[in-house]
């Protein structure tokens, strides 16, 4: 479903700084994966490569039949419509209500107008915000704003949800709520890739963890489990 093969990313203007070095991993259908590591380790770069905002300097990213080596510019919007993307800073349009923000994601894809209200209501219900559909982002708490962003990401029925520090701006309570929401989304069959600094969150679950440092994968809990099993420790 999602595959990184020997992916490197070098920024020549930043003095040949390598944001990623020979990164290789796979994510299966419906899997939940944490991406952890210090700031600048390359977590966001990996996520950007998934939605083809960045292309590898060498290696290949394959997602849902598209390859970073030969994807046409005109195919990138088609790919993104099948992904859900969420950020730390929510990225909502301040002058639109919650439901308008969610509807926006359908409008830009040219979805039939009649089908939009129903889908929007379903997505807002899924994230637990049905009662605040006409509120503007300013009138919502941080956790609620992030839920609107999740509803927008989910409204197109993505097969994978890409979340870049989705709890980075939230207090503990809201963080737990959002994480619970992510679990539910994953339980319904959507794969989740979540970059986070929150180690507590990572430890509280047994989801697969990829740890990055200086652009390299230094730990993959899936490999660790395999090697532990091979050693007979598990």
């Amino acid at each position: 479903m999602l595959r990184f093969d020997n992916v490197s990313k070098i920024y020549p203007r930043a003095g040949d700084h390598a944001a990623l070095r020979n990164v290789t991993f796979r994510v299966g259908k419906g899997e939940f994966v944490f991406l952890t590591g210090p700031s600048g380790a390359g977590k966001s770069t990996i996520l950007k490569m998934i939605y083809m905002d960045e292309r590898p300097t060498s290696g290949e990213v394959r997602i849902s039949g598209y390859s970073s080596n030969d994807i046409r510019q005109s195919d990138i919007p088609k790919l993104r419509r099948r992904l859900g993307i969420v950020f730390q800073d929510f990225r909502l349009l301040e002058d639109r209500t919650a439901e308008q923000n969610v509807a926006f994601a359908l409008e830009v894809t040219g979805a039939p107008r009649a089908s939009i209200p129903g889908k929007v209501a379903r997505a807002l219900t899924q994230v637990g915000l049905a009662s605040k559909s006409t509120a503007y982002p300013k009138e919502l708490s941080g956790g609620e704003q992030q839920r609107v962003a999740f509803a927008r990401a989910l409204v197109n029925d993505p097969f994978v949800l890409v979340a870049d520090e989705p709890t980075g701006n939230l207090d503990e309570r809201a963080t737990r709520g959002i994480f619970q929401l992510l679990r539910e989304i994953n339980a319904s069959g959507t794969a989740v890739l979540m970059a986070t600094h929150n180690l507590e969150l990572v430890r509280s679950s047994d989801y697969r963890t990829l740890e990055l440092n200086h652009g390299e994968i230094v730990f993959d809990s899936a490999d660790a489990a395999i090697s532990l099993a091979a050693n007979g420790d598990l």
Partner: protein
Amino acid sequence: MPSFRTAFIAFKRAPLLSALSVTTIAFSLFAFGLFGLVALNIRNALERIEERVEIRAFVADGTSIEDITAAADQIKKYPEVLRVDIVTQQEALARAKKELGEFSDVFESAFLPASLDVKLKEGQRDPKTVQRVADEMQTLPFVDDIRFGEEWIAQLYRLRNIAGVAGAALGLAFAAVAVIIIGATIRMAVLARSREISIMRLVGATDGFIRRPFLIEGAIKGILGGILALLLTYLAMRSLQQYLHFETAFFDQRLATIGILFGALMGLLGSAVSVGRHLRKI
């Protein structure tokens, strides 16, 4: 049409910026319009003067009316000639009396020569053609003298050519300025909405989808600016007319429509260039 809706929403969201854009477009088109109006009136005036371009061949005394008529028929066959009028001695006298008014009684007998007054077709009134026809008429046996104001015709044409070239050059310069201004206002609109554009991209909007409302916005601004410019030009003409003391012409419906469409085209062009460049950057 969601693109139209988005374009109108853009107007509503940034009324000040939109009004500013429309006004700037209006003023650049207004300058264009004023010049166009001057050019139009110069052209109209020149056409009126040009209509009076005439070659007059004075006929030698004693030429029979048959000979004159035969000559007139011959001249009529020249491809450049529109009309030939035979002016007999009596008619020449009557005309002179009329033109001179109170001195009319000075003329008593038929001392003025008869003439053939030749009018040329439209587009054949340039100095070279007039000279050629005059030369040809000179070869007729009983023609005494030919008058056609060669100096005057040449000057008239020079004036018209200068007006034409200056009009085209200034018109193009104003059009370029308008396109640049529209480009700049659309660029401001693109930058003001860069956040929205980046979100649109994330949720899978195509560049064409993102571009369309901006193009519509540019075209609408061009049309509104064009209409405002037309109004300003009209008001300017009306207020200037008090000092000019002669009838000035305004753009007819066809020219006004062309002007507004030109505004729309400039708006579209300015947006296309601006959006194209900035979409690559955002």
